[in-house]
Structure formats: structure tokens, C-alpha cells
């Protein structure tokens, strides 16, 4: 199978869905000629024209809110917020309007929109351009939250998100855009709410999201040389969340390491840990559930500090070794 980048996989999903369904259109800042801040939408303006690839002013609130309105009125918008940090400006529209509409209206309306947004640190962009805010959205009933870690998943999950009849927050990682992987040319879907076992192992279950999947897989290679066999589970969608796949893995290994980039306190890892310990999987644990997450600080600019602020491969290796001390 041909290999393409994560950014190309997202673009291909957008292109194929726009070809398939005339109701699908894009809106966001600089997504046209500029191709988006990370080049994801490059070329789509030429292909689909400015009616369907709509450059907007810098107006995050109305981008999200108008997407929700257009969706309510029968379209299937894919809106882009240039950096996840700026979803803060759109929070009212996302959380109070888009997320609640269907329920408030007695289930008689739907808001089939996707809000794509790049998250994450590692680019030296400092505190206001580097956050991972997925936990905020998982907290809001009515939203679905997707975080692909590979080009393959990005394409399949984005197509599913566009076809889904609910508002979906689709979180991309800036450092993943240029990573490559095998992606089928034809359109395909990956159901929302199905986790993926990215690597099989028997000693430790690492549950990782987004770029932390890449780091966990690299760490697993190192650990394998020490005789520690890591299983890496990528939930892929935080909401809906696949307890079943996770639990199956936990029962097999008995040791759990959760890794995400977002702040540790009230991060999604806390939810994962709670779900594992409040159910029957609790009795299969041979060690306390361990969380490795971003420090509770804004992302610093300095390169060294920036690296220290979020989990790195070596941190995962160290944490895994600590877990192996429990027999």
C-alpha cells in the first residue's frame, strides 16, 4: 500500500467526502490559498472553489457557531480552528449551542458538523499555541471527541466523523502531520468508539493517545530488548470510549500505564484510570494504575523546558520499568 502523510490523509478524506456529498463544505481561517497553517487543505480551493472552501475572518466564535447553524439547517460543515488553543474563543458555541442542541430540542434536530483543530507542543510556539485541550470537550455531553495517531486512522476516522450526525471535535497533532504510513486510496471508515491495539504484549498495557502512541511504540521497542513485552492500546476516540478493548488488554497484562500529552490534573487519563479501577478489571491488576501526562504548567518556549513539560519516550520507558517492579 502507498504511504502518505497524516496531513495528506486528512486532505484525502476531506476531498473524497466533498466529492461524495455536496452538503460537505469547509470553513476556517486561511484554509484557501494559504492551505491552512499546516498545509492540510492545500489545493482544495482550486478543486472545489471558494463557495465550498470558505476563508473566514479571524472569528472563531462565529466559525464554530455558523458551522453548527449550517449543520442544523441540513449541511455537513467541516470547520477548522487554526490552533486548539483558540477553541477557547468558540467555547460558548461549541459547548452551549452545538453540543446541547439535539437534546434540548427533544432529539428532533441534529448537528452533523466536524470541528478540526491541531493540538500539541513541540513546535516552540509557547503557551498559547501548544495546548491539548481534549479533556474539556469530553466533559461536554453531546460532543464526540476523536484523536487519531496514524495517517490510516486519520483518514478513516475523519470520514466517519463527517458522516456522523453529531458534532465531532477532531483533534490533530501538529507533530504528526508529516509522519507517514500506509493509507488505502479508496474511502473507508473506522467506527467511532473502537480502540485499536497498536502492538501486542503481555506485561504492561500502555494506553496512549495521539502522538503519545508513537512514543509508546518506540518505548516498547526499547523495553522489548529488556524482555518487557508492552501492549499499546490507542483509544482513537475519547468519546465514545471503548472500555471493552482496554479491559481485555488489562486483564491480560495486569499492569497499566496511561500516557497523554494534556495536563495531568483532570486529564483524560484520570477518566481511563477510574474506569479500569471501578470495574471488574480492578481484580486483575497487579500494580497501581500509573499516569504519565503533561505537567500542570503552560507550555514553555525554551526547547529544553518544552520537552520536559510533556512525556517523552524515555519517560515512558522509565515508568514502564517501575511498573514491572510489581509482581
Amino acid at each position, binding site marked *: 500500500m502507498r504511504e502518505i502523510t497524516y496531513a495528506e490523509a486528512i486532505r484525502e478524506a476531506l476531498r473524497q467526502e466533498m466529492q461524495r456529498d455536496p452538503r460537505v463544505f469547509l470553513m476556517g481561517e486561511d484554509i484557501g*490559498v494559504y492551505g491552512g497553517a499546516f498545509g492540510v487543505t492545500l489545493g482544495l480551493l482550486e478543486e472545489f472553489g471558494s463557495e465550498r472552501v470558505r476563508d473566514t*475572518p479571524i472569528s472563531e466564535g462565529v466559525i464554530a457557531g455558523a458551522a453548527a447553524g449550517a449543520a442544523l439547517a441540513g449541511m455537513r460543515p467541516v470547520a477548522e480552528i487554526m490552533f486548539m488553543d483558540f477553541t477557547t474563543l468558540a467555547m460558548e458555541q461549541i459547548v452551549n449551542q452545538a453540543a446541547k442542541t439535539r437534546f434540548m430540542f427533544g432529539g428532533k434536530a441534529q448537528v452533523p458538523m466536524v470541528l478540526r483543530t491541531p493540538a500539541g507542543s513541540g513546535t*516552540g510556539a509557547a503557551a*498559547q499555541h501548544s495546548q491539548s485541550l481534549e479533556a474539556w470537550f469530553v466533559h461536554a455531553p453531546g460532543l464526540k471527541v476523536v484523536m487519531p495517531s496514524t495517517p490510516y486512522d486519520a483518514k478513516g476516522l475523519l470520514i466517519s466523523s463527517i458522516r456522523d450526525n453529531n458534532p465531532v471535535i477532531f483533534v490533530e497533532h501538529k507533530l504528526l502531520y508529516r509522519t507517514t504510513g500506509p493509507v488505502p486510496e479508496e474511502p473507508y471508515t473506522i467506527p467511532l468508539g473502537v480502540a485499536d491495539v497498536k502492538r501486542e504484549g503481555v506485561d504492561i498495557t500502555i494506553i496512549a493517545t495521539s502522538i503519545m502512541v508513537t512514543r509508546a511504540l518506540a518505548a516498547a521497542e526499547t523495553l522489548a530488548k529488556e524482555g518487557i513485552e508492552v501492549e499499546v492500546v490507542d483509544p482513537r476516540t475519547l468519546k465514545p470510549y471503548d472500555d471493552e478493548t482496554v479491559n481485555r488488554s488489562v486483564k491480560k497484562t495486569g499492569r497499566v500505564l496511561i500516557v497523554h500529552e494534556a495536563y495531568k490534573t483532570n486529564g483524560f487519563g484520570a477518566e481511563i484510570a477510574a474506569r479500569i479501577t471501578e470495574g471488574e478489571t480492578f481484580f486483575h491488576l497487579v500494580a497501581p494504575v500509573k499516569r504519565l501526562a503533561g*505537567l500542570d504548567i503552560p507550555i*514553555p518556549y525554551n526547547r529544553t*523546558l518544552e520537552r520536559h513539560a510533556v512525556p517523552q519516550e524515555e519517560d515512558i520507558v522509565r515508568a514502564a520499568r517501575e511498573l514491572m517492579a510489581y509482581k
Partner: protein
Amino acid sequence: MVDISREKLLDMLEKMYTIRYFEQKADELFGRGKIHGTMHLSVGQEATAVGSIAPLRPNDYIASTHRGHGHCIAKGADVRRMMAEFLGKETGYCRGRGGSMHIADVEAGNLGATGVVGGGIPTAVGAALASKLAGDDKVTICFFGDGAANLGIFHEGLNLAAIWQLPVVFVCENNQYGMSMPVQKSMPVKDVAERAASYAMPGVVVDGNDVLQVYEAVSEAVQRAREGKGPSLIECKTYRWKGHSKSDQERYRTREEVEAWKKKDPIARFQKWLLEKGIATEEEIEAISARARQIIEDAVAFAETSPEPSPDTIMEGVYAE
């Protein structure tokens, strides 16, 4: 005619040069991999920063933007500490935590740059409110771009400042684009300044490449603000010579357009005026330019020999003691 002392005029020229050289050096250091992340250069816009801030007193406030190096220098910042911040050093204004987009010097009245477009507008309004409550006569200048004028917070900010008659001057640096978005496509009105009418405040358009025009318009607005007559909106028409940021391919504008604006270089224009009026000689101007260059060289030397922040201190600064 402008009423500015010769000394002040020459200081304004030196600041414009310092901004220009600072940014050229930053660009070069970025190219050599000494600076990471991104940066937003304001080359070509030196007159708006210097012309706006020159009417202020040292203890007045400014709130800046992501394109804020010029504002920072015009407010009198220590260029060595700015450069150190760029290089992520402990001696930088933000101890290497903030970087190019977040330089601040709150004690000196620079309430800081922000990476969020429009984010500084309510900050400025709040600072002006504090001045009003304190009963002092400080004025705040709020910088933002044409793109920021389409955010809700712009309208909320102007409205609040107007109904409470706060001592704030809104300075829009209209450099024709918000990233790739030309101003004509992002607004239905021709001038951002027209929007002042909705908030019953003066709205003035000036040539942002003429430091003296900027100075005059802002002086008047500062005067009004100081006298308790409320906010004003000044729109400076200008242009950024460089791309939006480091990742910009500049597909949205032509080379000819950029070249045409370069001919309107605000520094060359100001110099020409100084010479014609006999305020400065060629030699004096050369000396000013050389001094500005030296300031930048010193700043680089300081920054390069400064220590990196220690990872042990990473948790510091999130909360006040």
C-alpha cells in the same frame, strides 16, 4: 506642524532603526537555527509603533500583539533582555518561558504581547479602567491588527471603553492582511476606523508609514484620554514586508505589491524629512543607524552568553506566592 523636540525626533529615528535591525537579526538567527518556534516580523511597520508610543509618558501602558517587537522597543525595553528571550534564555524578559510572542515588561508599562489575536484588547480596557478607578491620569495604548477588528472581543472592548469613557487609545495597525486574508475580503467597510462610529468615539485614518502623522493623531487621542474624554480609534495604514510568520509561502500577494510598499519605507521617509528640515545631517543619521546596529550586536552577545533556564525550575511561576 509637529511640535516635537529635535532630541525626541532623533530618538524616534533611533528606535525605528533599532526595531528594523532587531528584526533583521532575529530573522537571521532563526535561519541559523538559534531561535526556534515561529516569529512575526513587523519590518515596514516601524512608524506605527514609534509614532504611537512617542506621545506617551514612561508610566503609561501599552498592550501589544503577536507582532510586537516594535511596540516593545518603542516602549523603551532593554533590547538585550528581549534578545535573550528570543533565544529562550533565563535572562530574557520572561525567563525563556514566553519567547517572541509573549514578551512583556509589566513594571515598565508594557502589559505584554499575546499570541491570541485580539487577546490584548480587553487587557488594555482593563488597564484603562484601573487608571480611572485609581484616579491617576495614565493612558493605555491598545495595539491590534486589521484582522483582530473582526473578533467579537474588539467590539466588546470598544463598547465598554466607550460607555465608561476609559482612557484608552485603540491603535489599529492595518497592514492589509490578516495572515492570507486581505482586509477588503474580511470587512464590508473600507476602514476599520469607520467602526468607531458605532461606539461614538473619534475614528481617524492616518498614513501609518508616516511617523509624524501617527504621532500627531495619537497625541491628540492621548490628550483626550488624559483629560477624561474617553477612548479613540486610530487606524494606521501600513504594510508588513515579510511573510506573516516563518511558515508563510506568500501565495496570497504579489512580489510587485510588496516592492511597491517597500518604496514607502517609513524610515527612509522620516530621514528624508529630517534632512530637508535641517534637523539632522547625513552624518548624524549615519551615527544613529550605527548606534542602533551596535545595540543589537550587544544584545546578541548578551543573549548568546546567557544561561539556559534550568529544568529544575520548570514548575515555577504558575501561581503567585
